[in-house]
């Protein structure tokens, strides 16, 4: 859609512009008469795993304070039945390395989002991912350097590792939908501004654990969905 818009703008045809405006009106802007819906609920989160056994190869030897990993959380998102996503400008997301942990431990983004990886610790980090969704290797970088930025163009899970601190684990969940929210530590979530209609609501715990629930959103209604 975005590509179509760009092509149209470059060519500058009025007819084309009219078609584009019509298309945008149909696809992205819901009719003003329909009120936004809300889904809220609780996701049963897994227990926090016990602290890992230290790897003797790289003992955790940090000059700064070692923070605890993020508590387990889930991402709840509405899977839409739209074949074309509306063109949106995504705000830049951040996956920091702070207290020798990825912060946040789990970052949900919409496809097309650029994520920056700022190092907030006093030591080098070397973040990489072998995930097929997005394979990259940032190499060693310090907090003084400009953080690397990566554009995530494919939906899926991206697992993050730091070669220097092998206890650090992070995940970026790249989603096809703008309607998502990470739960609070207690599992609560609230999704707002949802389009009415028949959808599937999913709760993503990890790669192996994804719950889903069909929802029929009515105009302005607030739905409560607990997982599982």
């Amino acid at each position, binding site marked *: 859609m975005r590509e179509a818009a760009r092509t149209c703008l470059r060519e500058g045809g009025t007819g084309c512009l009219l078609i584009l405006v019509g298309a945008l009106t149909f696809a992205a802007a819901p009719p003003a008469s329909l009120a936004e819906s809300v889904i809220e609920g609780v996701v049963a989160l897994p227990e926090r*795993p*016990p602290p*890992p*056994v*230290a*790897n*003797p*190869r*790289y003992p955790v030897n940090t000059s700064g304070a070692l923070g605890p990993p993020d508590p387990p959380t889930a991402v709840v998102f509405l899977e839409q039945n739209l074949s074309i996503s509306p063109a949106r400008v995504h705000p830049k997301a951040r996956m920091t390395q702070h207290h020798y942990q990825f912060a946040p431990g789990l970052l949900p983004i919409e496809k097309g989002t650029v994520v920056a990886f700022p190092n907030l610790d006093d030591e080098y980090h070397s973040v*990489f*991912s*072998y*995930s*097929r969704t997005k394979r990259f290797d940032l190499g060693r970088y310090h907090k003084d350097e400009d953080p690397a930025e990566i554009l995530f163009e494919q939906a899926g899970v991206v*697992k993050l*590792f*730091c*070669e220097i601190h*092998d*206890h650090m*684990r992070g995940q970026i969940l790249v989603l096809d939908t703008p309607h998502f929210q990470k739960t609070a530590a207690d599992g609560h979530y609230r999704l707002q501004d949802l389009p009415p209609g028949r959808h599937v609501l999913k709760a993503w715990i990890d790669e192996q654990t994804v719950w889903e629930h069909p929802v029929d959103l009515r105009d302005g209604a607030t739905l409560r969905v607990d997982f599982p």
Partner: protein
Amino acid sequence: MTVRPPALNFRLKLFLAMMLVVTGVAGAALLVTQRAVAATYSEIFEERFRAEVDLFSAAQEARLAAVRDKCLELAGSVRLIAAMDENDVALLYKIAFDELREVLNPELPRRALRRASFFRFVANDGRVLPPPDGRAGLTESASRAEWEPMLAAAAHSIPGSDRQAFGYLPLRPDQGRTELEEVIFTRVRDPVAQRTLGAIAIGFPLPAAGAGPRSLASGLWVGGAIYSGAIPPGVGAAIGRQIRVAGGRPPDSGRSVADLDGLPHRVMFRALPGPAGFPPAYQVCLYSMAELLETERGLRRTILGFGGLALAVALALSLRISRGLSGPIQELVAATAEIQRGNFAVQVAVRARDEVGRLAGSFNAMAAGLALKEKYRSVLDLVTDRQVAAELMNGSFALGGEVRDVSVLFCDIRGFTAFTEKMDPAEVVTFLNEHMTALTAVVYEHRGVVDKFVGDLVMAVFGAPKSYGNDAYDAVRCAQRMIEARGRLNTSSRYQVSIGIGIASGAVVAGCTGSKQRLNYTVLGERVNLASRLCGHAGAMEILVDETTRERLSSSIVAETLPELTLKGFSRSVAAFRVADFRSSPT
């Protein structure tokens, strides 16, 4: 019927006993010594095997320690964990080739580390992840289908507490040739997710184990085959038999004997730890038993030599001892035979003061005693009647006497006083001796006892000390023969005399009379007096008998009744009968 074994002579018995003792002692010494030698060598073999085991472990540790560390590093690498998590096989092998390039890259110059023959990743579900290229080794191996499942099973069976495992895997890199691989398994585990992701397996060809020092051959026995430059395949079969004999659970260690180059060798083996799925592996060492056997042979020769010598000495000694015993014994046997023949004067030589010497001395004393006794007996026979002498020798007489029914015979010479009146006393003795000798012989012939000689008178008793049944008959027959003997003597001798005989039968007291120091066997009683008186009344060459005698012999003799006699010492007249002749036979 029992068949008695032939009697063994003393010499043979002694020799057999000596042989038995010498053989027994030599055999026991041989047995004890051989056992001691075998135990000593067994200890030596054990000691050597322990040293060999230590050496083997140390060499293996030196060989593989660096690779083990490398594998642990690789398994702990966060990049490997990330790639394993992603299940990206190409990436996995790429990381491994990078980390293990020293052992995997054939193009790098050889350094301290040996070159691996293969390298594989095994997924947690038991799949051997296919390597992308030939650098992983053995990718073209025809027997991959055989060993990759073993690899997967072994990788899967690493105990949960261990990060690494080790085993031996026989591989056939090409047709016909079998090569033994030392395989190191390292578990890949994500410490953060606390999840096992899989394992790394890396194999190295086993360095050729050959003949070691001190006639020692060592090697490995894996899955029924022996891997060694020095041990023949037959030893593998021997160990295999032992392991099968041990039953279900293979033994941790063991020993047997196998032939190597025609020499018996002690085979010692111990189980090597290995993962499940791999064939059982044993470290095997062979020790030549030539030295042990040579020592045993030497000992056997020495002991048998000494045994033979001892046997010869024993033979000589037994000959000498038996001769020292059998010589005197044979002499004693000969001397005993002499004594049996009545030669009491025989004596044997006393050569030693031992038991045989004492026996010879005793024999001599016995022979002397027998000679003396015989001498006494001879004298006794001369001075008393021989029947009485026999009874005296038996000691059956006691003081006192017994009432016996006997016939008493008196015989004297008619006109003796007048006949000898003008004779020299010595001539009288000669004449009497001739007369008495002849008559005594007759008495003895008729089983009579010469009681005494009183001058020309002979007193004989029939029926005491022993009765022969018809004593009266014996007495009368004796009297008749005495008269005949005197008659014959009268024809041959210078002296012609007549004799008269009186016989009386009946109860008398017979026994030894006298003192304890001096005894005389005789008969006393009225019948004795009667016989004496009848003798006095008998005419020349006449036999007078009393009524009792005649009655007892009424069927045997023809007697003429004489007028009753009035005899001195008898209150009443006594009937007397002159014996005329004998009837045909006594009843």
